[in-house]
């Protein structure tokens, strides 16, 4: 909040502040090992390397990264659930997951060592936002298959802070616990903390007097600098950005320090690249393009050159906080049509797969995304057909409910299904426009 020079806490100065040369050396060493491990244990990736004519011994340093084939989210679906494991199943101690692109879930398997790394990077994340052993951390991300909740829990636990694992929902109870326990830090989505903040104000609670909250780590959905100012103003806290994805480890892949000038990537565990999404060619630091990650310490399900489809730029300049890790900017867009609704990844193709599965429903649809009272809304417009239509309201409501329930079970979020007149959704040749996003991001 204040403009005065602040004290920066760093969880692992050795790894976070090493020189860039030292780090490149460490990355190269770990990359060579990872590629060998992947080639020997994952048939899908071995076949992909063979097809490209790349042998493990061709990869000798991070300079050679560009020769490796990419991995995609579809690989996790095609090899679901255990095809990408590089260790025996008995060594996997945790599964986390998210919905895939077509309604089929994707999962990632973690060894004990992977959980250890995940806890480490989340400890770095929370420390960078000011967390220490004396802090009380409320985890208001969902605790479940979704990585947000467990990630925050493990990081705070590693630091030795007091964890309040609230999970998501039940706002009144969240606020009660926050106040009664004297919670000092919170982890949730930026839209949920905004909602919490507004509710706190409505309840007549003065955050600066009645609460002990000082900072929060917010992520899992896109947000803006304006939202940060709003949250910081609303609750009188430092709002730090956090980034991650299930496929890599979950939250903690990168995080903002209190300088709030980009997110530090944990480069001793992942290598970040920016590529031209059309050609796959590597782009230099400072240029905007698609973010690609290679895990270099992951045992259970290593990912090599995994395409995130997130667009951002990388900045290698040392940060005022003392860290030397490369920083990524906020995600400025997607190279595909993925939407993030209330922290959940939603692909229009998932909705489409639901609609074609419901009898009598036309495959034409439009998704209208908006943000109302700080919460994302998704309206699914579906055309009325002769098969769906009836002279009674209850019959039509049944069809509507069937569609809504199916989407909820496949995508995991509640939507408002709106029935519209036949042929009212614009047909277009080639790639149809399926999404109208009214959110100001």
């Amino acid at each position, binding site marked *: 909040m204040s403009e005065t020079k602040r004290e920066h806490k760093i969880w692992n100065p050795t790894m976070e502040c090493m020189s860039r040369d030292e780090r490149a050396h460490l990355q190269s060493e770990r990359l060579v090992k990872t590629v060998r491990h992947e080639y020997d244990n994952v048939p899908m990736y071995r076949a992909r390397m063979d097809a490209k004519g790349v042998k493990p011994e061709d990869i000798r340093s991070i300079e050679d990264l560009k020769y490796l084939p990419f991995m995609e989210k579809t690989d996790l679906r095609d090899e679901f659930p255990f095809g990408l494991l590089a260790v025996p199943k008995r060594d996997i101690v945790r599964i986390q997951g998210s919905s895939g692109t077509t309604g089929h879930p994707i999962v990632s398997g973690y060894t004990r060592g992977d959980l250890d790394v995940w806890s480490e990077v989340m400890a770095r994340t929370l420390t960078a936002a000011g967390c220490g052993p004396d802090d009380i951390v409320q985890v208001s991300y969902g605790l479940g298959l979704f990585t947000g909740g467990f990630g925050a829990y493990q990081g705070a636990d590693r630091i030795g802070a007091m964890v309040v694992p609230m999970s998501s929902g039940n706002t009144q109870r969240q606020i009660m616990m926050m106040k009664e326990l004297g919670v000092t830090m919170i982890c949730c989505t930026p839209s949920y903390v905004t909602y919490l903040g507004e509710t706190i104000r409505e309840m007549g609670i003065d955050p600066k007097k009645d609460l002990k909250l000082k900072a929060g780590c917010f992520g899992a959905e896109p947000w803006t600098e304006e939202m940060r100012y709003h949250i910081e103003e609303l609750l009188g806290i430092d709002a730090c950005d956090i980034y991650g994805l299930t496929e890599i480890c979950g939250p903690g892949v990168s995080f903002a320090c209190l300088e709030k000038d980009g997110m530090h990537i944990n480069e001793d565990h992942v290598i970040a690249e920016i590529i031209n999404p059309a050609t796959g060619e590597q782009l230099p630091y400072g240029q905007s393009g698609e973010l690609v990650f290679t895990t270099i310490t992951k045992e259970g399900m290593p990912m090599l050159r995994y395409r995130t489809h997130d667009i951002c730029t990388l900045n290698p300049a040392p940060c005022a906080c003392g860290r030397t890790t490369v920083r990524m900017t906020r995600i400025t867009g997607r190279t595909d049509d993925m939407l993030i609704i209330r922290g959940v990844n939603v692909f229009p193709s998932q909705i489409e797969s639901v609609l074609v599965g419901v009898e009598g429903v036309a495959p034409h649809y439009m998704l209208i995304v908006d943000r109302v009272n700080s919460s994302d809304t998704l309206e699914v417009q579906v055309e*009325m*057909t*002769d098969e769906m*239509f*009836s*002279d*009674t*309201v*209850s019959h*039509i*409501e049944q069809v*509507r409910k069937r569609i809504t329930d199916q989407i909820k079970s496949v995508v995991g979020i509640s939507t408002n*299904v*709106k*029935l*519209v*007149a*036949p*042929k*009212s959704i614009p047909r277009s040749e080639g790639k149809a426009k399926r999404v109208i996003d009214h959110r100001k991001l």
Partner: protein
Amino acid sequence: MFIKQISVFLENRQGTLRELTHLLGASGIDLMALSLADTQNFGIVRIIVADNQVDPALRVLRASGFTARVNNVICAEVEDRPLGLNALLETIDAIGVSVEYLYSFLRATGERALIILRLSEQDESVKKLAEKGVKLVSQQEIDNL
């Protein structure tokens, strides 16, 4: 004994009902009864026209992109006085079926009012209503109104 009803889907958007009435009117379709069911999300317009106008009405509606269908409903006479409708509903209660919707005819016939009904188990219900002495109106009678 049933009469034909046309139901039309209306998107929840300003002006859709007017588009419908304009379209039917311009095609010379005479609306003899009409009801509008609306929810937060959509509406259903139910209309009664003369038998020989049912097919032309459907044709123009569908040609203009409306979703429409025809189904059978019951048309019953009640006395046009306080508790007239109530007497009919008591009979319906007595035969143990439920009303899915009902509305009244636009055209009055003097001392009688016409009620259009959609009941659960319609085929059974029609027989029982007739047995109980409810005067049911045929499509032909409607056409002659």
